[in-house]
């Protein structure tokens, strides 16, 4: 059952990405281009998502186990440090270069976009590089 609901949540997430325009890199860059002719659509994507999310997380915060009886894993870290902000900056630069963030890149895989295959492969290499650097940092 958790595997099925996980698939279903991914499916709904992906449908939202396609419908909202987030899955179109040109539209994402149109939103990020404040100085050009600005497309404010993606602000409404965030607004819609957070409006629903606020209710869901208010409920989740009051519970220890999910409606399927699984533990609810809410993040506990509260540190705002160089790692968080530096990572955010690197991510933002990459996002601004191609207009892809992780979710939409996966949705584009499903559309058979060869460019998305290249992006996702490079993204996985970047994630593996993080694991390698973290492993080395802990070893010292």
């Amino acid at each position, binding site marked *: 059952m958790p595997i099925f609901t996980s698939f279903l949540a991914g499916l709904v997430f992906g449908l939202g990405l396609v419908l909202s325009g987030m899955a179109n890199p040109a539209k994402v860059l149109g939103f990020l281009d404040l100085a050009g002719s600005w497309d404010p659509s993606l602000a409404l994507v965030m607004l819609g998502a957070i409006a629903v999310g606020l209710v869901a997380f208010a409920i989740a915060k009051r519970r220890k186990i999910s409606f399927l009886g699984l533990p609810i894993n809410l993040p506990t870290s509260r540190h705002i440090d160089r*790692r968080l902000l530096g990572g955010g900056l690197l991510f933002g630069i990459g996002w601004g270069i191609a207009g892809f963030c992780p979710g939409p890149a996966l949705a584009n895989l499903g559309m058979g976009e060869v460019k998305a295959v*290249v992006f996702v492969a490079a993204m996985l290499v970047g994630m593996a590089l993080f694991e390698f650097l973290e492993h080395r940092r802990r070893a010292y």
Partner: protein
Amino acid sequence: MTIDWSSFTPYSSLAGGMLIGLAAAMFILLNGRIAGISGVLGGLLTPKKGDVGWRLAFILGIICAPAAYALLAHVPTRQIDAGWGALVLAGLLVGLGTRYGAGCTSGHGVCGLSRLSPRSLAATAAFMGAGFLTVYVIRHVLGI
């Protein structure tokens, strides 16, 4: 700033956003997990027993979404202008950055802000700010 009204899609973007919020709601209230794509994906690189299936299922769901969408409606056209080198560089930065920053647009931007997390607000400000600045430099300073 001039607003590009011809590209503005308020209804579909708002409805699509609500679907994304619904997916995040399902994931936390049923599976007890944060719908953060970079975290779900990154966890597969250091696989632990019993921790792989739900990750793959969620990712498979996203990948299958365009085909499911095509059964219901016409899939909107999309355009990827970045060249191959730019895609590789962008992918590396997104992969590295989302793991150091412990989240992306979904984990920090949607789930984190919905949880009213100051940490996620700081992360979202960092990547949105960097995204705005990067597009400004590429389009209006370098003129690419």
